[in-house]
């Protein structure tokens, strides 16, 4: 019974993540459309896109590593979903804490780097080298945030953190500076302006995605849904008190994901070295000051 229960959770947690993630993609596209005074895509647009990409007649593979890279990119996030507790379902979250989760969050970028490397497209190589540099930039504040939160809650388990916040106050009230640093890292992690140099459609033709087509592109679209969901739910669990039911958790997660998109169009695009400079300066400084208060 117990094993069956766990199996069901391992299936349902990524599935919920996928469906909610598609809604988040829709929300982001709607927000950018409304900001530009457009109507935006219809409700099922993310689903249409994914089905169409998987249904293409031509599927060009550039080799085995290309295939494995995409599987790593999607699989890393599926691994992350079952470590991310949601109301009613814990998966294996009790066994692997937030540290395991932050390792899992790096796998997709590395998988993409592998896959793009075999495409041998110069735009792709430029894009992925920029993406990995950006990862280096946002991971330092991200690790600081995770460390600070874990120290504050005296637990590396997300379940423990959520329980603490539901008894005491939300994390964002108790350590506001760390929460702001987390938002900075989130902007970089989601690759929104001003940290989207590695996509740069007009300059390097969407960088890492340049040779991706058909189901490979579809895999990346699926990855994006997981990415948004993970970012939203993780931030909500760390700072916004998680949730006792989906009705309280999902609005927080949607709000967290909506923030970067809403402010994205105010910014131009930073160069790669400037991305590192700004991400290693401000959020790290905020994080360190916050750590000084916490420790």
């Amino acid at each position, binding site marked *: 019974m117990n094993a069956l229960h766990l199996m069901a959770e391992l299936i349902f947690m990524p599935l919920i993540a996928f469906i909610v993630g598609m809604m988040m993609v829709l929300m982001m596209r709607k927000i950018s459309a409304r900001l530009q005074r*457009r*109507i935006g895509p219809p409700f099922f647009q993310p689903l*249409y896109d994914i*089905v*169409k990409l998987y249904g293409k007649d031509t599927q060009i593979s550039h080799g085995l590593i290309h295939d494995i890279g995409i599987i790593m990119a999607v699989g890393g996030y599926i691994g992350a979903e079952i470590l991310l507790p949601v109301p009613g379902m814990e998966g294996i979250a009790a066994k692997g804490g937030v540290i395991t989760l932050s390792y899992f969050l790096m796998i997709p970028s590395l998988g993409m780097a592998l896959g793009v490397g075999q495409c041998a497209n110069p735009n792709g190589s430029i894009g992925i080298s920029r993406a990995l540099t950006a990862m280096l930039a946002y991971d330092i504040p991200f690790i600081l945030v995770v460390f600070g939160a874990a120290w504050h809650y005296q637990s590396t388990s997300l379940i423990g953190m959520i329980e603490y916040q539901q008894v005491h106050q939300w994390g964002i009230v108790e350590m506001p500076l760390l929460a702001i640093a987390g938002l900075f890292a989130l902007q970089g992690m989601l690759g929104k302006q001003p940290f989207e140099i590695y996509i740069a459609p007009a300059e390097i*033709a969407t960088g890492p*995605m340049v040779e*991706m087509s058909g189901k490979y*592109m579809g895999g990346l679209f699926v990855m994006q849904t997981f990415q948004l969901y993970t970012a939203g739910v993780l931030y909500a669990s760390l700072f916004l008190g998680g949730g006792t039911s989906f009705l309280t958790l999902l609005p927080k997660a949607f709000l967290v994901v909506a923030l970067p998109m809403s402010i994205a169009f105010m910014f131009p695009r930073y160069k790669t070295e400037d991305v590192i400079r700004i991400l290693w300066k401000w959020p790290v400084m905020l994080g360190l000051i916050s750590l000084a208060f916490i420790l």
Partner: protein
Amino acid sequence: MKKELKIKQKERTNPLAHVFDDFIRFCQSKSLFMLHYCTGCGAIELPPAMTSRFDMERLGIQPMVTPRQADILLITGYVSIKTLKRVILTYEQMQSPKYVIGICSCTVNGGMYWQSYATAKKLNEYMPVDVYIAGCMPRPEAVMAGLQRLKDNIRNDKKEHKGSAWKDYFKRYDYYLGNQQALFGEDWQTPTDIIAEAKLYGLETEETYGKHTKLLEKHQTPLLPQEMRIK
């Protein structure tokens, strides 16, 4: 000379195959990624069609930047002979099902460049065109109507067979290659092996081959990976 060819269709054993096909076709008509090859003045009409006034995204159409990702190749204006080479290279790199839309009179019949020695007059002599949008230049309303027509064609492809013009490129490759060779010379060759693709999809007919493909075989040099060298 006519060749006897047996076209092998893949056997489909899934009883729900047609349902899946219909669903995929529906999604294809709802989600179109567009690569715009802006050659002439028609490009001016695209920004209003994409931005707040007419908003293509509500039809599920969004711009993409590489031929690998795109479904529609949108050619907006006159195609000079030099440009046409690039257009054909781009078209052959796209993933089927792929669609071509010719905007402006110049792609229909040469338009005001009819007497020019340097332009290709009719686009559909060199690649199958799904929808032409005539006008000099067509207004965004016309562009939107053309895109809507393409969506309807894709959706009703099962009955009317208007949304699969891309198959024509494989079925009648000799005709298209002949027109290309007439412009670019006998040794014209693209990096894509169309005949092999036609075999893969089971789309080769007797018109796939002809004297032009023979000429291509004579001049074809095998494609090798580029040598990596630091100068």
